[in-house]
């Protein structure tokens, strides 16, 4: 958009907003490397709080649980979401019902989905644990994978599919040999996005993980720690969690030049 906008005013707005967005996070990252660990004084660069973290068995256990949840739910969601995306895009008729069902997981408030799943699992007498967290995470993860893959499919040249069929390939062979390779970057981008969502997800995990100590995920552990107040250890943990998200997201973005979902 070319506008008559005053460039100086625009620059001021952007500077203010980026300062607002990034100062809090930057302070957090900075403090995690402060030897003394307190905001009152900089006592030197140190990675000792990261060391402390590694010796904290609660944190390490929770991190391990989160890794399991994120990996398993990402794999499931990627398979289901990709098939769904291809199915929706090659279907001639666009069903409003299907569109709504695919879109819903992205807009339902987390807390509603969380209590709905909790009620559902307890009605069926399912023991809560990491497995129920995984089942739940797949719900929104597959919707996000689907939306990323669909965005790419919109620019996909379907005549190559017809060419493949013309040359004698069956539908599964065409999917495997033609569609999948072309779509791979978008699929991996969707998977990375699902992975970060799952690593960061708190509310649904909080409700569906049950009360046992052995099914605590990292965000649940962070929530518990934050309630006790600010510690240098949390700063370090928060920095690591953010770094994981940013790296996965940057990779996703690189693979999928289409931009962030919703963009």
């Amino acid at each position: 958009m070319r506008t008559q906008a005053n460039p100086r005013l625009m620059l001021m707005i952007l500077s203010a907003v980026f300062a607002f967005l990034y100062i809090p996070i930057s302070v957090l990252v900075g403090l995690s490397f402060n030897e003394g660990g307190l905001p009152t004084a900089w006592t030197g660069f140190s990675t000792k709080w990261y060391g402390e973290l590694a010796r904290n068995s609660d944190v390490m256990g929770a991190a391990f649980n989160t890794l399991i949840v994120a990996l398993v739910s990402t794999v499931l969601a990627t398979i289901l979401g990709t098939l769904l995306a291809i199915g929706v895009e090659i279907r001639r008729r666009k069903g409003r019902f299907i569109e709504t069902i695919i879109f819903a997981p992205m807009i339902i408030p987390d807390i509603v989905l969380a209590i709905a799943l909790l009620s559902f699992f307890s009605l069926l007498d399912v023991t809560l644990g990491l497995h129920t967290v995984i089942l739940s995470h797949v719900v929104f993860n597959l919707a996000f994978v689907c939306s990323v893959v669909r965005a790419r499919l919109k620019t996909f040249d379907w005549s190559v599919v017809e060419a493949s069929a013309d040359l004698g390939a069956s539908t599964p062979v065409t999917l495997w040999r033609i569609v999948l390779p072309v779509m791979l970057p978008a699929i991996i981008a969707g998977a990375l996005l699902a992975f970060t969502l799952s690593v960061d997800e708190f509310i649904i995990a909080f409700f569906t993980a049950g009360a046992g100590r052995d099914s605590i995920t990292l965000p649940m552990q962070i929530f518990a720690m934050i309630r006790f107040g600010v510690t240098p250890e949390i700063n370090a943990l928060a920095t690591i969690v953010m770094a994981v998200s940013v790296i996965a997201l940057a990779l996703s973005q690189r693979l999928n030049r289409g931009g962030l979902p919703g963009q």
Partner: protein
Amino acid sequence: MTDRKPLYLMSPALAWLTAFMVVPCLLILALAFFRRGIYGGIEYTFTLENIALVFDPLYAGVFLKSAGIAGLSALIAVIVGYASAYAIAAAPARRQPVLLFFAVLPFWSNYLVRTYAWIVLLNREGLIASMAHWLGYDGELPKLLYTESAVVVGLVYNYLPFVILACYAPLSRLNPEIAEASRDLGGSGWTTFRRVTLPMTFPGVATGFVFVFVLSIGNFVTPALLGGGQFQMIGNLVYAQFLTANDWPFGAALSMFLIAIMMGLLTLQTFATERASGTRPEAT
């Protein structure tokens, strides 16, 4: 390809969504109409008591407070978000994707971490207090953390990137000649913005507002962490029914109420959008 093959591809995911989203959501819809058991649990007899309880004056205070905080957060987020999106859309075309990427990046990092960052800034021994002290201010600082303002700041901070994204989309699609036409016809910069640019980009503003409002009113993390549990949002109320008070039917009724608010606002927004964009055929 026939229409049947896509169904094979779609069915595993659709089955998953049905089992773990549609059915659970229908379940709490039903739950809202059952009686609460004497020792918690659920008694399967039909009642409208839970729905009635939602509108009980007892909870009017919580609702008003929630709606006030959510409304204020959504308003601030929309104003700041629109201004930022406008500034991004006015930047040179090749810089826009980068600016947008960095504006949205925080949205994809952990919600708890982003909220925690404000505890670090605002707490009594936090950065702002330290700065004030360092600058030579020795008096008693006003309480920053565990206030309503802290909750509003936290909500705006967390949802701002979403609003920027929602407002940027229609702003970037705007044909610059349309704003120029308004200038050419005698409209000042402000008139052009008020009568042309804003109405044409209103769908983004409305989407941003609805989502920030609904996500805020249903939030329980930010009030718990930045508000210190001093006041409740509807989200906290739902949380309490399921995890402490053990009144699941009432909790279910509350969450249905939340969904109803969201649906209502979205319908309103769709209506407003259609009016704004002129896609609705006028009677001629």
